[in-house]
């Protein structure tokens, strides 16, 4: 499993784009929002936590279809499925690789973009923490969506239609943590709920993803 993770990370690095593309998209999105709503600092400060969360979510969505598509094309997905590793483990490692290449850079970049959006001082730490806790759930859910649509020719749009509603609870609690943190309120309740969702999806969803993948590889 470690070898698989290392392989995926190397592939993502070699191909380039993996890290950079999502980050660039995130930056552009934040800039576009600022263009859209105007440069007024107080307004931007108020909506910053929500924008940064939505942006992270969309940037995450962008690279989902690559999780399985490349392996599917060159046939290594079939090889992996027949390998002695349980498919659940493979799926988890794929999600982890996606999180390290896409989620983690977003988490690190978010506070910097928060500067641009005039995010209030106490918000930075909580934005960082909420994204750090929440993005693994996004990757795992996304892996499920990618596994569902792996065999389809034009899966991209369908993938977003399926995955985005699944992101709703994570987004709500995550953005709530960041918002309350920015306003200096207590963050414990949404933070615990967010962590609960992440743990739950991490524990259960790989089984669903693996089942779906088995169906698709039949």
């Amino acid at each position, binding site marked *: 499993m470690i070898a698989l993770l290392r392989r995926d990370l190397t592939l993502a690095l070699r191909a380039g784009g993996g890290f950079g593309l999502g980050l660039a998209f995130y930056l552009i999105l934040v800039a576009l929002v600022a263009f859209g709503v105007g440069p007024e600092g107080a307004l931007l400060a108020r909506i910053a936590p929500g924008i940064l969360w939505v942006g992270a979510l969309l940037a995450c969505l962008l690279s989902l279809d690559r999780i399985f598509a490349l392996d599917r094309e060159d046939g290594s997905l079939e090889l992996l499925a027949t390998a002695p590793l349980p498919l659940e483990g493979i799926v988890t490692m794929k999600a982890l690789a996606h999180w390290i290449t896409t989620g983690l850079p977003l988490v690190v970049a978010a506070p910097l973009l928060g500067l641009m959006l005039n995010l209030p001082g106490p918000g930075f730490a909580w934005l960082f923490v909420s994204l750090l806790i929440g993005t693994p759930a996004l990757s795992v859910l996304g892996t499920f969506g990618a596994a569902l649509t792996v065999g389809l020719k034009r899966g991209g749009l369908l993938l977003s239609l399926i995955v985005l509603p*699944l992101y709703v*609870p994570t987004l709500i609690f995550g953005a709530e943590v960041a918002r309350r943190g920015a306003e200096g309120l207590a963050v414990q309740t949404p933070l615990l709920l967010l962590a609960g969702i992440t743990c739950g999806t991490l524990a259960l969803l790989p089984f*669903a993803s693996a089942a779906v993948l088995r169906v698709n590889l039949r």
Partner: protein
Amino acid sequence: MRSLWEYANPKKFIETSQRVLPAVTWASVACLVVGLIWGFFFTPEDYRQGSTVKIIYLHVPSALMAINAWFMMLLASLIWLIRRHHVSALAARAAAPIGAVMTMIALATGAIWGQPMWGTWWVWDPRLTSFLILFLFYLGYIALWAAVEDDDTAADLTSILCIVGSVFAVLSRYAVNFWNQGLHQGASVMRAGALAGDTEERVSNVFALPLFVCIAGFVLLFVALVLLRTQTEIRARRMRALVARERRG
């Protein structure tokens, strides 16, 4: 002893549903006509809501059916995954567009009612928002059915999506509750028969009786449409199989 599983046989299902369908259809039409006419023409106005209270006869039944249709799809999906009865998977497929339309009706009537009552077409109220999310789930489910070519694969994939989606629909419901306390009144219909309690909030009998007739009408309409559409799906599937066999020679 005849068992329910007999209807897992497509032929048997078509035969029986063919026999039941006219009765269900006419019962549903009768209930809807009686309930809606009763509700529209022969109920008084509410002292606060005026005549807009009449929208309840469409809004509440469609909202109920929007949720129940998803439940039925969940059950059918589970039956398909566990016992692999094709009729079950096709029934889930047949129910999805009905559920989506019911969600649309609930949202549309709600918006039209909200405009004069709350002064806005749309508020980000927990109930409204979770219905919007439910609608998105229906869309994703229908789109996935349409996108996958092989029938059995599509049935498997959509069943798993339905189960995962159910969990997340419930999660979203509570998340949204947390996110915003709403304007929407609580579910007062089920308390309609309650003896004691807050008379202010419960739906009085004048409104409740035609409402129950309407709910019965919507349930029967749903059953009739599911039977009809499942038949259609069975036939379409058989046709695809025949055409495929023909091509192979």
